[in-house]
């Protein structure tokens, strides 16, 4: 009789520790995870050893405050920017030198760099 009682006890499996662990995992993932989509933008600063680069291929692009972009010293509006960059590529200027102005912040730099890279320059170097 007693044996039978033990068997019936075994059948009722306690789920409480399982729920404890699952809740803990849930809380961990809720706190540690984020739904932001991350990306990276490569930054190549100009250094020694680049002095022999072909000057005729260089395109000078300035980045200023509030996402202002200047190509060869002339300010370009947002809708004309990609056309302007494509024209530089068409002219054979495949090495971009991005000059960051003093008042520009990281946000300006990143958006400018992303656009310059998207235009298809083979090398993009940043100077200040």
């Amino acid at each position, binding site marked *: 009789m007693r044996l039978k009682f033990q068997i019936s006890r075994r059948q*009722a499996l306690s*789920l*409480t520790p*399982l*729920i404890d662990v*699952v*809740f803990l*995992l*849930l809380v961990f*993932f*809720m706190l*540690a*995870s*984020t*739904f*932001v*989509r*991350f*990306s*990276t*933008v*490569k*930054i*190549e*600063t100009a*250094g020694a050893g680049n002095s022999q680069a072909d000057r005729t291929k260089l395109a000078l692009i300035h*980045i200023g405050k509030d996402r202002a972009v200047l190509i060869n010293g002339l300010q370009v509006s947002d809708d004309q920017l990609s056309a302007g960059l494509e024209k530089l590529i068409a002219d054979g200027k495949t090495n971009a030198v991005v000059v*960051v102005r*003093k*008042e*520009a*912040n*990281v*946000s*300006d*730099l*990143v*958006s400018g760099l*992303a656009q310059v890279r998207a235009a298809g320059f083979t090398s993009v170097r*940043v*100077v*200040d």
Partner: protein
Amino acid sequence: MRLRHNQQIKKKQPDLTSLINVVFLILIFFIVAGVLRPFNDDTIELAQHFEDQTGAIVASRLIVRQDGILRYRNKTLPLDQLTGALNADQDLDRSKPFIIVADARLMAGVLLSVTRAVRASGLSDVSILTQRQQASRGQL
């Protein structure tokens, strides 16, 4: 008498299966849909840009705050000590791209000096962590 006895037992042990089902579902949702945060600093606001491609983002330990304060491995250090700290770091994997977490409102010149200090320690592939924007849906 018999009815009452049964009811009492049922009340003592409520059926938890449906609860576990739901909790498991939520857990799996967070595991699949979420990404673990690659850095640990609440003050940082990342720069945004449009891009389609995704890349693997490794955890980053160099954080530059809005006011130019530099934190490496959760320790604040001045810029002139950064190269030395990177050189002394045994755990740093030099074959992987080095990712800097910089606040979007930081002056770009400060970021460039930090980049030069990182490159001075022999790391040639330096990137900055950004937030991807989608043209159609905007920021998620």
